[in-house]
């Protein structure tokens, strides 16, 4: 049993140490795996704001992940083919600049989260789960038939986008970018959890009637959380697309939404470090179990079942239990 603060520092420090050790030992593939962990963690930290703090079981966060991915894909595609992007009223040039892509990815996914949230948050419980799932599927089918950007074949981007002052093609530099963003998102999550907004959001999860009687609107709190959550997951989507230099409708698939929830549950719901632990476990399982058997997802399924049935609170809950159980 270790303190939560210690656990957080160990996990984050461990991720950085693995990447640096891989740099010293000249193992670029391990750095790429660590980058994958950082990006998946970031996506799950985003989801954790809605799911962990707000209690909103979104089964459609792949929508924002995919929108981020396609924001990167479309902008970089127009930049690499030197064709303008026609937006109807006016045209813009594509770009290979990461900060611009990130901004677009976050704004678009926040916008999508606002629209989906306005509809889905009218309901709760199972309806919310199914509606978020259905809207993510809508994007999935739309991109599948969107022949201008590759349809089901997806879009390949030949050269990774650039960041001023860095060479993003060097694995450790790209890892650095993702790691810093992940740390920033974790810091944001931590501040949010203890800020008046986060406390109100938590109360809206536990006792919405009381929140309403003190004059706050649970719906508005949840909507803000959902939009924020979508924007962060969207940013992760743009980075993920940049890591693979490829986007396809699979980023929108419901397996993606499911896996993001799995990351959080593996690690521990509403725990700051939960998504990172979950992502580490997921990538390690995927890489090592996947190397042993083609059917590794059977074992992922079994592990997941065991955690849901017997180890509520995830790995963070096992290593550093909280005195008061979360609902």
């Amino acid at each position, binding site marked *: 049993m270790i303190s939560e603060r210690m656990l957080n520092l160990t996990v984050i420090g461990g991720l950085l140490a693995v990447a640096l050790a891989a740099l010293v030992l000249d193992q670029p593939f391990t750095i790429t795996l660590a980058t994958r962990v950082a990006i998946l963690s970031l996506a799950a930290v985003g989801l954790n704001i809605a799911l962990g703090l707000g209690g909103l079981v979104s089964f459609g966060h792949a929508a924002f992940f995919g929108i981020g991915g396609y924001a990167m894909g479309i902008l970089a595609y127009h930049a690499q083919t030197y064709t303008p992007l026609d937006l109807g009223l006016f045209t813009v040039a594509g770009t290979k600049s990461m900060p611009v892509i990130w901004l677009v990815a976050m704004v678009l996914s926040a916008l999508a989260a606002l629209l989906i949230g306005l509809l889905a948050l009218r309901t709760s419980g199972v309806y919310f789960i199914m509606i978020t799932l259905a809207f993510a599927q809508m994007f999935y089918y739309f991109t599948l038939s969107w022949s201008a950007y590759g349809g089901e074949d997806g879009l390949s981007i030949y050269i990774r986008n650039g960041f001023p002052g860095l060479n993003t093609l060097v694995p450790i530099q790209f890892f650095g970018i993702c790691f810093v963003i992940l740390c920033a998102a974790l810091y944001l999550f931590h501040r949010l959890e203890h800020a008046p907004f986060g406390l109100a959001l938590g109360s809206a999860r536990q006792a919405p009637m009381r929140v309403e009687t003190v004059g706050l609107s649970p719906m508005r709190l949840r909507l803000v959380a959902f939009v924020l959550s979508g924007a962060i997951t969207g940013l992760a989507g743009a980075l993920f697309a940049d890591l693979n230099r490829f986007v396809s409708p699979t980023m929108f698939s419901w397996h993606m939404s499911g896996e993001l929830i799995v990351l959080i*549950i593996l690690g521990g719901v509403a725990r700051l470090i939960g998504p990172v632990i979950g992502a580490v476990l997921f990538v390690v399982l995927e890489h090592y179990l996947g190397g042993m058997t083609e059917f590794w997802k059977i074992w992922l399924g079994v592990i997941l079942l065991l955690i849901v049935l017997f180890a509520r609170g995830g790995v963070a809950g096992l290593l550093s239990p909280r005195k008061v159980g979360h609902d």
Partner: protein
Amino acid sequence: MSFILIVEQVLNGLQFGVMLFLMAAGLTLIFGVMGLINLAHGSLYMVGAFAAAAVAGWTGSFLLALLAALMAAALAGAIIEMVVIRRLYATDHLDQVLATFALILVFSEGTRWVFGSFPLFLDIPDYLSGPVTLPGGIQYPLYRLTLIVVGLLVGLGLWALIERTRLGIQIRAGENDREMIAALGVDISKLYTLVFALGAALAGLAGALVGAIQSVQVGMGEPVLILAFVVIVIGGIGSIKGAFIGALLVGLTDTLGGIFLPELFKLVMSPAAATSFGSSLASIGIYLLMAAVLIWRPTGLFGARA
């Protein structure tokens, strides 16, 4: 755009709709009685289709194949209910989503392990193949017509089961107050296993019936599962009547949208643009329908509970 084409497409939409109803009825029943969201329902559809394909390949009989589908899916349903699902009734929806998502992984990869990644084929029997001439001189495949009839009959049977039998009374009582009927001496855990197996059998039947016109492969249940979710969100969760109306709406919207939207846009755009825009819009048509219903009625057309 002839009258015959329109009738054909309406029939196709109905056929798709009644098959969706078989899926959605089980889902909505399980949610209504046990309050459980079951993502693994699509896996039961797949189990039915694989059992049918295996038995049809082995015996050559389509009826035995259907029977095998019903039994395999019901058995798989009863087993997962007793081993896993039973522990989830008291937990929140997040745990249910995760555990049943885990079941999908186990079922899909397990089936891939046993049967391989190549699709299996289930043939339509001779006595159901070929076209049939409908009044008005319309030629329509006999098998698809049979699916519509079977779907409607199953719907009718389900209605009779729930409204007219003792089991139906228990199911309806279970929806309203589970503590009370347990106190009255009904073995609630047996009832739950039975309802779950019934829902599973309906999904397995749908899988086998549709498997004969599409290919039988791993993951075939997932798109249908998500459509079934859309159906029960539109119809109202827990309502069989809602599932029926919702399934027909979704089936017709999806089929007719794919055919008529491109034609409609050709009136105002170039043919190429109309085809591409129309088919993109048609692919998301049912989700737009769902959004419209939600704005109008957040708990679906026939949903009582908030």
